[in-house]
């Protein structure tokens, strides 16, 4: 019996984490989901990926169709509430769960939404503040890196230093900061297709600043922004590799950057 004790203690100490993959990582870039799983496991978490997850419902919510967003939010709350933590590789989806779900409801569902919000974390914040990653045993990343702050991560989830700190600690790279780093890249969910000319102007400003920073690799924590920036960079023929920060933190990526041809 005695020798079971420490073992049990260790299993109890392991954090029980549900990964919300996000619709964009699920559909467009599964390697972000796998990277998130690897990082969370490396940080000592027991990772679950609840089946039946799709999307947080932001497209309908931000377009004003609250009636469509409410049942989607209820499904997410039901699916994720059994876990100790919910971790999301996106500031925008995390912001939806933490800041906007509670505002959708009153009464019992509001309580449930608030309880979910209290245990929901954006990935890089979770890996610095809740379950810190151990020091790595790997070669430093040999690339000039810049970082795009997604607006929801920055303003709704207080994500700013955490990805930079992780990049330094895990990959040994110091981020070359973008000029006007706190200005939106023009993605804005459905905005980017409703007002493509304005959206692309904003992407161009961001990309020009990225090129001016001298970086070759543009990282970020939100696939929405990154698809927007990569899509515009490809159209302009810019030599800029665009990736989610989790891909780089999890190990030197082998596949192509977002929108790049296979190597």
């Amino acid at each position, binding site marked *: 019996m005695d020798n079971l004790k420490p073992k049990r203690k260790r299993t109890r100490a392991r954090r029980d984490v549900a990964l919300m*993959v996000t619709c964009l990582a699920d*559909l467009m870039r*599964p390697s972000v989901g796998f990277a998130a799983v690897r990082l969370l496991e490396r940080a000592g978490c027991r990772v*679950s*990926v609840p089946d039946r997850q799709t999307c947080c419902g932001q497209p309908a919510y931000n377009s004003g169709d*609250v009636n469509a967003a409410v*049942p*989607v939010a209820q499904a997410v709350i039901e699916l994720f509430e059994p876990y100790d933590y919910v971790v999301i590789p996106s500031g925008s989806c995390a912001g939806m769960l933490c800041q906007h779900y509670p505002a959708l409801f009153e009464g019992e569902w509001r309580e449930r939404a608030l309880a979910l919000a209290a245990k929901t974390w954006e990935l890089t914040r979770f890996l610095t503040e809740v379950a810190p990653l151990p020091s790595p045993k790997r070669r430093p990343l040999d690339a000039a890196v810049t970082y795009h702050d997604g607006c929801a991560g920055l303003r709704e989830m207080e994500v700013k230093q955490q990805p930079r700190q992780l990049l330094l600690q895990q990959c040994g790279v110091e981020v070359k900061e973008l000029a006007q780093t706190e200005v939106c890249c023009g993605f804005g969910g459905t905005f980017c297709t409703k007002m493509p000319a304005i959206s692309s102007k904003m992407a161009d400003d961001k990309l020009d600043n990225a090129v001016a920073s001298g970086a070759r690799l543009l990282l970020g924590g939100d696939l929405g922004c990154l698809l927007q920036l990569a899509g515009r960079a490809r159209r302009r023929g810019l030599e800029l590799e665009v990736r989610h920060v989790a891909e780089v933190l999890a190990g030197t990526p082998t596949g192509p950057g977002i929108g790049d041809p296979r190597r």
Partner: protein
Amino acid sequence: MKITSDHFLEHADAALADPDKAQRRDLLGLFMPLARDAAAARYGDFEALRVHLKQVRRHTMEHLEHYLTRFEEEALRNGNQVHFAATPEQLNSTVLSICQDHGARRVAKGKSMVTEETALNDHLQQAGLDVIETDLGEYIIQQAGETPSHIVGPALHKSLAEIRQLFLDRHDLGERPLEQVADIVAEARGILREQFLQAEVGIIGANALVAENGSTMLVTNEGNGDLCANLPPVLIVCTTLERILPRVEDAMALQRLLVRSATGQPQTSYTSFYSGPQRDDDVDGPLETHIILLDNKRTDILASDYSEILDCIRCGACLNHCPIYVGVGGHAYGWVYPGPMGSVLTPLLTSLEQSNDLPNACTSCGRCAEICPANIPLPDLLRDLRQEESQRQLNSPRWRRGLRVHAWFLRHPALYQRLSGWLMPVLAWLGKRRGSLRTLPFAAGWTGTRDFPAPEGGTFMRQYRKRGKVRRRRG
């Protein structure tokens, strides 16, 4: 002012196609936030001041009738005449009848967005009056026959060269170089001084109305407001109900927030309180003073879910911080108030039917709410307006259907995952050589200006399930 907000997208395209103006706007978007941040940091606890003013504003709006009654009593006691105008037409006709009572021919105006809202100049000019704008920016756009592009700097869209040419064309002053900014300012000053002296009526706006003593507060950098208020024999203050504040110290708190947020200055050149007409022992000042309080739907807004927009102090900081305003400029918005505050106010003061693009001109980036001195949750109010559009079916039927179908799939995860598990590998195959797609059916909104990055292949959920790791149900 005629509303053309329903052409927002066309205006925006035209604005983006003009590189000179776009570059000047980019500079505005770069430097004004730096100036505002530096001024806020130098103040000390700017955040506490924002919270304080917000409380004062909310309290005042909740007791609007009480404070308006008090203001009226005090203003009357000071010798002012106080008028209430429910509609823009009532404000315009009240101003015109005051002018006509005095046989006035010439009116000198200080900067006033309220009179832009009511199109007062057109009304007075149609009745045969000469109206001259005396704020330099307003004077420039009046001479050019244009409308303000920014609520604080109305002529920010014009270059020095354009203004120089405008003055050479409009002022019959012979050959002159007019090359330096100082020359242009001096020329305008010379012309405007004459106008102040000749005008029989002066019109100004107000940044605050003080209930406890019946005075109105105005901040300017040019001093033109004080000349409009003091030189002509008749003064008319055109303002709106929600400028009201209980005490002088509240007006001063507003002034501290306003000036730093608007221009990054610690103090404007002039901050004036106007109490009423010249008294017996005064050496100068107007002989007769009127205050017109316009409602124009403010009381409706106060009773609605959008009441916080009434806390707006018209500093223009949300414009300077909005990448969409900076991208397309104020004229694209098609009415008096542009940027985030304008995208909320325009639908409320005109109609959502006439301006349904404006609440969509927002990425919900939250930068405006972060710096708004009145702590107005602008992105939330814009989302509420989009909700109203959706409920009243003012957005495109294609969009509504698309979102409905998408939300339906989200609620049927098995089908969603099967379908996406099939579709994504197809898209990946289509884009495998280039890594991205140049065109995609039903996605012209994206691929018109951007490539569509090809998905990696099978979806995460399918791949993960194949590895037998997906949690079916938690026991």
